[in-house]
């Protein structure tokens, strides 16, 4: 009888473990989250007219400071709630992603040469200046170069034949 009781106790314990044994991990939420936002990254931060735009920062205060965009686009993700939003300004596009009803900065992409990175690189900058500023050794023929720091990345697309910068984009890392 003692053995039987032991078996029953083990089975009951196993059942309990299902509920408590795995800590407090949560089930997938109703929103597709690239990942939960953490503290804004310090390493690669775009700044426009004195407005700092760190990746994964809450978007609303930034959007409000930037003023009316030239264009606004939103797209629902397949299945999940919330909208990915793209605000187009005169010289860059700002994309956001939603988490629990709050929008966060996903990326900033330059659309012309009137803005530059904090280190002074803009669309049209030469490969030499890029290599000097970021202490890199990118060669002519390479078409992309990405720097990563904390929660952010800074990616450059380069002209394959000249090495000149053709696109600049800050992104939130997954």
């Amino acid at each position, binding site marked *: 009888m003692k053995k039987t009781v032991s*078996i029953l106790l083990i089975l009951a314990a196993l059942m309990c473990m*299902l509920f408590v044994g795995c800590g407090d991990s949560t089930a997938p939420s109703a929103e597709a989250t690239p990942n939960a936002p953490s503290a804004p990254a310090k390493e690669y931060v775009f700044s426009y007219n004195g407005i700092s735009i760190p990746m994964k920062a809450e978007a609303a205060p930034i959007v409000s400071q930037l003023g009316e965009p030239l264009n606004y686009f939103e797209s629902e993700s397949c299945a999940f709630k919330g909208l990915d939003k793209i605000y187009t300004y005169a010289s860059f596009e700002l994309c956001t992603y939603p988490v629990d009803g709050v929008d966060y900065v996903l990326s900033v992409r330059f659309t012309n040469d009137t803005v530059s990175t904090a280190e002074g690189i803009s669309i049209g900058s030469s490969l030499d200046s890029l290599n000097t500023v970021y202490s890199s050794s990118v060669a002519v023929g390479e078409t992309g170069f990405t720097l990563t720091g904390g929660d952010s990345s800074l990616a450059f697309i380069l002209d394959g034949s000249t090495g000149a910068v053709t696109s600049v984009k800050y992104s939130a890392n997954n």
Partner: protein
Amino acid sequence: MKRNIKRIIFVVAAVAVWVGAFFMTQRLLEPKYMDDLIEGALTAEYYDETTKHDVIFIGDCEVYENFSPVTLWENYGITSYIRGNAQQLIWQSYYLLEDTLRYEKPEFVVFNVLSMKYGEPQSEEYNRLTLDGMELSPVKIKAVEASMTEDEELITYIFPILRYHSRWNQLKSEDFEYFFKKDKISHNGFIMRADVRPATTFPEPEPLADYTLPATCWEYLDKMAALCKENDIELILIKAPSLYPVWYDQWDEQIVEYAQKNGLAYINLLDKCDEIGIDFYSPETADTYDRGLHLNLSGAEKLSNYFGGWLCSNYQITDHRNDPDISAVYSEKSADYYAMKEDQLRELSEFGELKSY
């Protein structure tokens, strides 16, 4: 001796009760995907099918929102099913095809190529929508292994309770309502949306440093082509007519080249919008419900009519409308389809938007 038998019976009964309780608890805690995130119910619905299909569509939302199997049936007598899910990645499409072949051998497999742009698993949330509903089999195990992101574990797909145990304090009425039986949410894998939201402007396509489609995707496309060939199935590649996200010309060229090299048909339906009659922009009558990302019901019906015509004029395909058994099944499917259409139109007229869909 008698005492021993009693003990054995008692232990067996205890284990049976425990196993029963385990699976009942698991069933309760699993998301039901009925009131919310209905896309999560798509994979499992396929197993309720009672007839075989001429055509199996596989891919992402660009198939389950854009093709209407009922239109293909009504206009051409073609039987079809969509095995598509939200952001279904190519390896998931491949394994869902393998899974499908456990039950039937279609004449045609139509694969939408948008997912060729993703070379790595994207998120657990989307993995769960596609894979949770798959019947447990060696194919599911392979699908999960190919799909898992860094923090996921295979065992949680075999025993979902290990993933969802913490839902006990988030249980909703739908968890009890759909404990035993779920409602049907699709029409042979098609999710119907009758509302209209015309396309406006899109952001400029972003330049990429490298337009080469990922090597993993080509490997799976090779596997898919080989699997179809092995089973004497015609594989057709398509790019559905969704305006956003962008489908780059450079990607298209690679698919065209692959199709030519492998003797496969490929239609970029984005180039056929005028021929199909798809209108993305008229305020009241546009064929999209979300500004050009997906087609609405009228768009899906136009596209399916065009695609059925294309299939019939390029291949020998049997018209099953004179088969009484299949007709009876599809007659019921059509009735459900029109009932939902009517209900959606009623909601649109009453509330100006869809409330229950």
